[in-house]
């Protein structure tokens, strides 16, 4: 699934969250939306799944306007994960993950098989499936959220700061797992992060944003080696050292 913004503007009150952005998220690639908080990257993600609507311009899904699709079926073709997981507190881990499949009338065996598959992919402990979100660790919550987002085998995966709420140790572990999950998924992924290291580690392409505009986009190495703007250099310098990613950062300096 290819996602595209065509000259999109989104305002909240007097402020402009997205300022005339045109951008393509190529099918089958992982793109990181990177930038300081308040730069509009979360809003951009929410535009892609129609949680907010553009004031101007259009969001395109496979080259057709998003507004031309019936919205619920389209959303079921995407997976969306927010920072603290967004798990429903009245449902267990398994119930959260399988909610949509059960709602759509999948038979029990199919649900169980899919759950098993995803549990293995996300490395979620089987004995925790019957726990409620309040009884899960931060990392486990994110894994359940991933299972839920992936359950219907969507064509695109949208993640808003999936590691943002985790402590550093869990963070590093889940980051590595996410990379594996994205590889296995093999479809369009858009991941929002303010962390340079994460963007470099997880994404094929990085889109660096600032105040509602795209500053530079391309592979991380390109941003690091050929910054389009002093802001690029400055922001990349905030990144945490990541093996493999840290080197281009240093050569850029």
């Amino acid at each position, binding site marked *: 699934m290819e996602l595209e913004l065509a000259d999109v503007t989104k305002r909240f009150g007097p402020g402009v969250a997205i300022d005339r952005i045109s951008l393509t998220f190529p099918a089958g690639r992982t793109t990181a939306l990177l930038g300081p908080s308040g730069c509009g990257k979360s809003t951009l993600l929410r535009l892609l799944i129609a949680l907010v609507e553009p004031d101007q311009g259009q969001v395109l899904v496979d080259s057709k306007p998003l507004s031309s699709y019936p919205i*619920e079926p389209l*959303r079921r073709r995407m997976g969306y994960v*927010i920072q603290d997981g967004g798990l*429903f*507190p*009245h449902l267990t881990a398994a119930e959260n993950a399988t*909610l949509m499949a059960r*709602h759509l009338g999948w038979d029990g065996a199919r649900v169980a098989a899919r759950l098993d598959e995803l549990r293995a992919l996300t490395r979620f402990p089987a004995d925790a499936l019957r726990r409620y979100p*309040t*009884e899960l660790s931060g990392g486990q919550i994110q894994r359940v959220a991933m299972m839920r987002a992936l359950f219907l085998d969507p064509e695109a995966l949208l993640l808003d700061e999936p590691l943002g709420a985790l402590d550093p140790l869990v963070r590093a572990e889940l980051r590595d797992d996410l990379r594996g999950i994205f590889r296995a998924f093999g479809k369009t992924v858009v991941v929002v992060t303010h962390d340079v290291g994460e963007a470099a580690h997880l994404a094929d392409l990085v889109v660096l944003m600032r105040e509602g505009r795209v500053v530079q986009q391309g592979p991380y190495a390109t941003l690091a080696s050929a910054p389009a703007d002093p802001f690029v250099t400055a922001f990349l310098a905030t990144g945490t050292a990541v093996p493999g990613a840290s080197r281009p950062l240093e050569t850029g300096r």
Partner: protein
Amino acid sequence: MRSRGAAALALAAAAFGGCADPGPKPAGPPVVIASKSFTESVILGEIAADIVRGTGLAVEHRRQLGGTKVVWRALETGAVDVYADYTGTLYEEILRDETPHRTLDELDAALARRGLARTAPLGFDNGYALAMTDARAEALGVRRISDLAAHPDLRLVFSNEVMDRRDGWPGLRARYALPQVARGMDHDLAYRALDAGAADVMDIYATDAEIRAHHLRVLEDDRGYFPSYAALFVYRAGLAGRTPSPVPALRRLEGRFTAPGMIALNARAKLDHVPESEVAVDFLRQTHMEVSLPSALAPPKESAVATIGRHAVEHTTMVLLSLLAAIAVGVPLGVVAARRPRVGRVVVGAAGLLQTVPSIALLVLLIPLVGIGTPPALVALFLYGLLPIVRNTHTGLVGIPEPLRDSARALGLRPGARLRLVELPLALPAIVAGVKTSAVIAVGTATIGALVGAGGFGQPILTGIRLDDFSLILQGAVPAAVMALALEWIFDTAERRVVPRGLRKQRGT
């Protein structure tokens, strides 16, 4: 209107069986006789019921149906056929605009306009009067109100309504040129003050039972200051057309009472605790109007346990039915209110406004719409029950964190499915709390059902207040309190079952 009232009564009678008439079943709809919530009215109602029964007609006596406004509305709308009232009440309170000169002609015209009629006065007057203890009056030689002027040291105590009303103490003092300064005092305390010699003169109703108990002398209103409160029966004019007609039987009571006689009847019921039905039978016997239908006269004896059981059934029925209706309407309203903030403000505001309508006013407004008995009580309880449920549903839904809302939308759930699978379950703790509040309020409020003849635990409370019988009041108040506690416990248990573990933990932290 008539048929709707009758239907309401039939429903109430069928539902509870408590009002069913004993004895042989005469044909035709029963003649519905009502009484107000004080002893004299109940005695007059019993007497009227007995004497009409003597003609072979079926009779239903709605004992202590309510205050003047409730009973009058019930008569106007045809839910009630007959009740006893006083000319003064009709002139001053009910038909004020149409009876400027307080004449019987004006009264007849005003009644006729409503399809109503009246009997001639029954022979006694229960207006305002002044009283002193017999001993003190004798010592001072006071028989008439004008005699008071010669004793400026007398201490006068009046109930507050008499103190304040222009046609109360200020007018009285002017008419009789009385030199005393009066003080306001609670009516019951005033009797004790007179007993103790702490006060000398008080206001009373002319046929109060206490006149006998406290050995009071009613002073003659020799300058005719107080308006007349002659007792008579008012009835639906259509009664005259029935065969047999109950009107001639009622008219046999015209002029058959005296003020001292009525005081004695009141005292027997209120002070000697003789049942009103018995007082009525004795009166008819003594006045040689004895009714030859003994089976109809003896009301079925009911054990105390059976009575409490019946009240419990009536009370529970009112609470549960109104609560179910309030849930069925309140939750959807709360959902609509949460979905549309502008509508929400109106809905929650309106439900709040309903809560501020005094129950007695609400009941009076409902009588023309749904008659008397259980229906108006149910509607009133339903309306009072709405606010907590609507408000809590609204609060519960609006309080769902934005990320959870977004997650549900992003999953591709349609609005209806979001509501069912996510939003309502998340709002459930708040909704259950609202229902619990409504239920507990309903248990307390259902006691007002007795004001319109719906029975319940309000019935013994009302009778207890009327007869100054504290144990009777407890017979209603204690079970009502126990029921409220039990309901609270049931809901707490239900809450643990209904609310998912995940939400309970979260609420606990």
